[in-house]
């Protein structure tokens, strides 16, 4: 047997191995794709079914056996929903409070994070740890004292009772600090040589550089406060000041068993956040991934 044939055979087995590996990988990829498609269908089914129900005539929603079809599809449920609930008002309340919370969170947290990242002041480490410890405080257990506090300020049943407790986010400080820590010093030094004040350095140099962090924190804070249920639920009793999640929680009992209408309300309640999500998915995901970085 010549040397050449041995080498050739070795090469063929290598090639065969490679091709079986490619085959295996293809099969595995195919299998995981099929599995993912099945899971994805299960995941979207509840949303599709709600939309489907909301478009049916009320009398056909409770048909047995269940069917995706109806004699005809109609927007009647949406029209009644807008006419009979305070949905527009709830959108406005949610938008107003979430926008304020989001903006103030950005300013407060980025200023604090700037000092923690860039200014070597005394007591900095202790303060940073005190703020980080806030992440450990479970929000749900604060509802009773927060209510008493707002009562003593005379702010129950006002926007303030929703806004004030959501302004100081330790997590936002953390995300900003992570970001500031990663920006090189040189720029700042150049500006300081020019005699710029630290506040100008913060506002005109760091903040524009930190736009990705600003977006992540801002959008994340917006969605979190838009979706906050418990706080506005205990603070607000008047229909006029309710946010979307609180207002929606009242429709099940007030509509009775009118499922097309209930589902139309659910769809209308979910659409604004889903739109925000589709546009700003990256920022929301970064906001969450920021949580993961602290490990």
């Amino acid at each position, binding site marked *: 047997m010549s040397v050449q044939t041995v080498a050739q055979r070795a090469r063929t087995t290598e090639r065969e191995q490679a091709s079986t590996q490619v085959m295996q990988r293809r099969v595995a990829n195919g299998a*995981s794709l099929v599995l993912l498609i099945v*899971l994805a269908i299960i995941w979207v089914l509840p949303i599709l079914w709600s939309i489907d129900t909301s478009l049916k005539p009320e009398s056909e929603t409770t048909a047995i056996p269940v069917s995706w079809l109806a004699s005809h599809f109609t927007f009647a449920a949406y029209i009644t929903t807008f006419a009979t609930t305070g949905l527009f008002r709830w959108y406005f309340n949610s938008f107003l409070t979430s926008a304020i919370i989001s903006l103030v969170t950005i300013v407060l947290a980025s200023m604090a994070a700037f000092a923690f990242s860039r200014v070597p002041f005394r007591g900095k480490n202790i303060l940073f740890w005190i*703020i980080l410890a806030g992440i*450990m405080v479970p929000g749900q257990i604060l509802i009773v004292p927060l209510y008493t506090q707002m009562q003593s300020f005379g702010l129950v049943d006002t926007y303030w009772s929703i806004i004030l407790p959501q302004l*100081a986010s330790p997590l936002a400080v953390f995300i900003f600090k992570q970001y500031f820590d990663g920006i090189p010093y040189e720029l700042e030094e150049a500006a300081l040589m020019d005699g710029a004040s*630290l506040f100008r350095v913060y506002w005109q140099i760091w903040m524009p550089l930190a736009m990705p962090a600003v977006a992540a924190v801002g959008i994340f804070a917006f969605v979190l406060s838009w979706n906050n249920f418990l706080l506005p639920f205990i603070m607000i009793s008047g229909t006029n000041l309710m946010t979307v999640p609180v207002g929606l929680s009242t429709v099940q009992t007030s509509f009775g068993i009118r499922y097309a209408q209930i589902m139309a309300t659910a769809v209308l309640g979910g659409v604004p956040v889903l739109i925000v999500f589709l546009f700003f998915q990256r920022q929301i995901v970064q906001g*969450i*991934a920021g949580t993961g970085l602290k490990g």
Partner: protein
Amino acid sequence: MSEVSLQAARTQTATTGRLKARRRQTDLVGIGFVLPFLIVYAVFLIWPVILGLRMSFFNWTISGAGASDFLGLTNYQQVFADADFWHALGVTFLFTVISTPLLVIVALALALLVNRAIPAKALFRTVFFAPFVLPVSVVALIWNWLYQPGFGLINGILTGLGLKEVGWLSDANVALMAVIIMTVWWTIGFNFVLFLAGMQQIPVELNESASLDGAGAWARIRHITIPLLSRTTSLIIILQVIASLQVFQQAYLLFNGSDGPNFSTRSAVQYIYETGFTTFRVGLASAMSYILFILILIVSIGQFVLLNRERRNA
């Protein structure tokens, strides 16, 4: 003393003086930047924590009556003797023990699948993450409808397959399971995204060279991905347990503000809410909050220590 050394000494005191002044200025500037946050943080986070502790020692009611009626530890004694509180704590515990592994393992599995080189990655990521951004009330409305007997979609599919209907909303044995399934659907996106972010930080070369050495997909997952994800996994478990121990709103809303069949879904936080806001005993409710708070702290610190040790040993 010579002229020169005198001059040197004078410059030195001047410099240290200037240094000190600048130091003080830096301190002031630093505090100035932190102060706005710190004030809001102290008033609306630290103060409620202290106020809650104070309230738990008084016969405090929601109208403010009894705010000076000091009870000592009586509220705590009453809570510990209350069978309903223990039952609610049991519901919370059961929910946590079942939902945490599901929410961690399913999220990891989804992330592993989506992280493979498959088409339409972004679409899958969107699908699994989207429910997380829905308000809890929307989620509860949808699932209350899905779980209906007869004309509900889930029972409709079950009977269509020749299986028996399940009393998701009426059977005390499955009601909590109904809450858990809904919670997995709603919140899995959070853990899923954290896992995906963790996987992105694993160097691609590691997987490539292992693959060249003949390691199959499963071996790579077991020996590369999972060990390198241990930091992320520990964090997810800790965050998940803290979140699960606070379960309340989705269960409360799924059952239209009730306690579920035979109190089977009344969690600790729901019991705190009812004590504070329907029987108006906010002092008693604060004592319950503190017991839960301390429980959550112990569990999370315990987990932190345990998971850290395990990681160091691994």
